[in-house]
């Protein structure tokens, strides 16, 4: 063939479409960009977009379809950990490649997956450390609030272990889960208020995912829980999610990511401009009027570029050759640092930023790591993980 096919596997309908649709668009933009510069190995990239419709079994089916039927060389896709877990066996069985662009809970390493989002130590742990710092408000009590599924559960397990190691008592930790799509946070916020009124400085760590964030933040605002009293740090709330929220009452609440749209540097300015132009040209609903970028978009962008570099280095799209070539790839990321693909663990070295919500829905970076952090997918705070090597098994 005179083109190289790449699969794009993001939900364009269903509950996750809110977050995932834009990743498909960014992927298409990046592919356009690469093609405009002559493609890869002299061939144009041909995107194959499918819609797994927020339905986890359908993810697996569509992955099969992309690999078997369309014979794609690589797939960029998935958001939730469930969807990733559902397609994982397919990629391993067919020995194909997946680039996964979202922060996740770790405790997984597949040789067929490259994780371009954050591992817990690249997001969750630094965020909590910040909360405990003087600037972060010296929090002593923590509410771990999340959507009930593997990512929040595992992240909170790691955080609990981490907090314990820092001397926080179990009584000072409250853990709460709500189902996907939960929309009435009255009782939970009342509970948080009660918990925080009972003692020392309290902070909330939110791993609420998807739709629930809007009602959560609205209720937070209305119940008068201000960031100066009880700050909330979220791991799944970015610029795109805040689009749906009136941010004025939320000023000062926090999010931890490896990228913010508000980061000022030329690479990011170019990235934002490229996206704005693309969104306008393609008439992408929402973004054509108010273009926004966020962390998973950046991760998608980095992933596609790195894959391209690796293919060029390997001079082949063969899975094993590309995997080998991926090790140590670098890319100047919009986040302002040069991201490096770890030589072994399939994760990027990423900087960590903590941002506070501004009235306009953007984030003020109030804290950042001095440089990129190496991912630790098997968090050492969990006793059982000691000795787990951060290297995928070669079969």
């Amino acid at each position, binding site marked *: 063939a005179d083109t190289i096919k790449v699969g794009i596997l993001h939900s*364009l*309908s269903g*509950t996750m*479409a*809110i*977050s995932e*649709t*834009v990743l498909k668009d960014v992927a298409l933009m990046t592919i356009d960009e690469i093609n405009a510069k002559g493609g890869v190995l002299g061939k144009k990239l041909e995107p194959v977009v499918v819609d797994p419709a927020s339905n986890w079994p359908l993810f697996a089916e569509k992955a099969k379809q992309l690999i078997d039927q369309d014979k794609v060389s690589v797939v960029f896709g998935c958001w939730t950990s469930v969807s990733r877990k559902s397609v994982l066996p397919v990629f391993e069985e067919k020995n194909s490649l997946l680039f996964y662009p979202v922060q996740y809970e770790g405790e997984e390493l597949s040789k067929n997956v490259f994780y371009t989002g954050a591992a817990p130590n690249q997001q969750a742990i630094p965020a909590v450390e910040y909360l405990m710092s*003087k*600037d*972060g*408000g010296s929090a002593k009590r923590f509410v771990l609030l999340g959507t*009930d599924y593997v990512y929040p559960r595992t992240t909170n397990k790691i955080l609990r272990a981490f907090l314990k190691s820092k001397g926080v008592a179990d009584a000072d930790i409250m853990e*709460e*889960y*709500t*189902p996907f*799509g*939960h*929309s*009435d946070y*009255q*009782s*939970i916020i*009342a509970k948080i208020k*009660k918990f925080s*009124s*009972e003692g020392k400085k309290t902070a909330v760590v939110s791993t609420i995912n998807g*739709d629930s964030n*809007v*009602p959560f933040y*609205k*209720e937070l*605002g*209305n*119940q*008068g829980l201000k*960031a*100066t*009293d009880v*700050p909330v740090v979220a791991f799944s709330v970015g610029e*795109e*999610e*805040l*689009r*749906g*929220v*009136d941010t*004025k*009452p939320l000023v*000062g609440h*926090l999010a931890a990511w490896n990228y913010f749209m508000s980061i000022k540097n030329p690479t990011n300015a170019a990235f934002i401009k490229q996206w704005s132009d693309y969104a306008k040209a393609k008439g992408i*609903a*929402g973004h054509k009027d108010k273009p926004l970028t966020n962390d998973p978009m950046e991760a998608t962008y980095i992933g596609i570029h790195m894959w391209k570099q690796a293919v060029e280095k390997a001079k082949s799209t063969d899975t094993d050759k590309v995997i080998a070539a991926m090790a140590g790839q670098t890319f100047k990321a919009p986040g302002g640092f040069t991201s490096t693909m770890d030589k072994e663990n399939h994760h990027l070295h990423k900087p960590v930023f903590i941002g*506070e919500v*501004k*009235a306009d829905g953007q984030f*003020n*970076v109030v*804290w950042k790591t001095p440089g990129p952090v190496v991912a630790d997918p098997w968090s050492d705070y969990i006793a059982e993980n000691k000795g787990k090597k951060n290297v995928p098994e070669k079969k």
Partner: protein
Amino acid sequence: MKLLRTLTFALACLAPAVHALTPEQAAAIASGETDARIEALNQAAAAGDAQLPGFVRALLDGEVKVLDGRVFQMQGDKVVVAGTAQAVELPEAAEDVVNNNRMRGALEAALGALKLVSPEAKVRAEAIEELRKQTLDESQLPLIEKAWAAESDAGLKSRLELMRATILISSSDVAKRLAAAQALSASSEPAVKSLLQERLAPGVETDAAVRGALTTALDAVEGKLAWGERLGVLFTGASLGSILLLVALGLAITYGLMGVINMAHGELMMIGAYATFVVQNLFRQYLPGAFDWYIVLAIPVSFLVSALVGAALERSVIRWLYGRPLETLLATWGISLVLMQGVRSLFGAQNVAVENPAWLSGGVQVLSNLILPYNRLAIIVFAFLVLGAVTLMINRTRLGLFVRGVTQNRRMAACVGIPTARIDTYAFSLGAGIAGLAGCALSQVGNVGPDLGQGYIVDAFMVVVTGGVGQLAGTVYAALGLGVLNKFLEGFAGAVLAKIMVLVCIVVFIQKRPQGLFAMKGRSAEA
């Protein structure tokens, strides 16, 4: 630590101001490491600076920018260099001052202490509110006492008195402790509860009389807090119930009366919410001054838009399906897919932001541990207004009579001279319009996105069916009942288990009442 400084600052403020803020001081407060900035703030405060409050407020409002150590403060249209009156052109490269939470806290505390001596009672009340959230210690006593002595408003005075007591409770003077303990029984603060508990911990308070007073006070406080909690459950339940009611009302018409298993009901709500969004944007663009009142227009617009979509659906699809309820399920399911994808294409797959008008943000503090958010209060009122209107229209008007007649026996209704096609369209549009109103209300508490409707459709059917199909009164009781039950259970079982229990309750309840809460009895039920 922070308050100690605040205190000095406030005390200083009680004296006439002598110093003026210098540009250097402003720069030190506005930029640099947080520690240093707070230090600078406190120094400026200690100096009793007259311009400081304005500057602090500007910092909090994000109206201060810096560039190379120069600090610019926005004052309306013009820009001045902070600490001077000199108006300047704002340099292109000037950057926003970044305040983290700690800095913001310090700024607010500074401002709060200042307000404590304001001549306006309202401002003082705000300041007391600020102070209430802090942990006080003996070093703040002079400030509190001073403010207390000067306070003229009886309500504020008693609040200051309570604050004083929270400090004196750990005084070394037994008599003072006793008096404080007695005074504290008037409090309804959760913080006071933990304070009293701490004092009662073994070995902390040794004097028996004081311990007795502490126990009494603790009981009193706990009693008041318990009330707040109980009322809170009731309110949250009522609030959830009112939302369920709004969501179910439209369905009570399209499904309960007309027999259309309207799976697109949720999408009609979604359309109402998007209509609200569009109205909001139009206001923002063309009538920014009246922005707070956009909702007043959004209500009729969301009704109309959804009603029109409903009318179009009725005319094109539903009307061919009367008497075949299960077919309506299939067709409306298809319609809902199309509508959802439609807004995705039109507005994007992401959620859109609908802002609460200022008067619907925040809430009224009823008890120390009970805030009733305005938007939820408004929705409760709104739900009942809509309910009243629907009830009147269904039961008291000729149109309502025709609707009920037509939906029972379409053919015969035509044979007594009712233009059934038109009545059907009206009825369906009305149901759709009410769905639109529900969407408008939901936009004030939740997501506005393509999936908005999906989250409510199951609940809506549960409510209508639990209440008894075709029974408005049943719908009301079911909505409120399920709302309160849900919130009550959530109190000790958590959100997920509570919801499961509610569902199980519904299943069990229907066993007892196979036709819903307000079952139609007798022969007419079979007709």
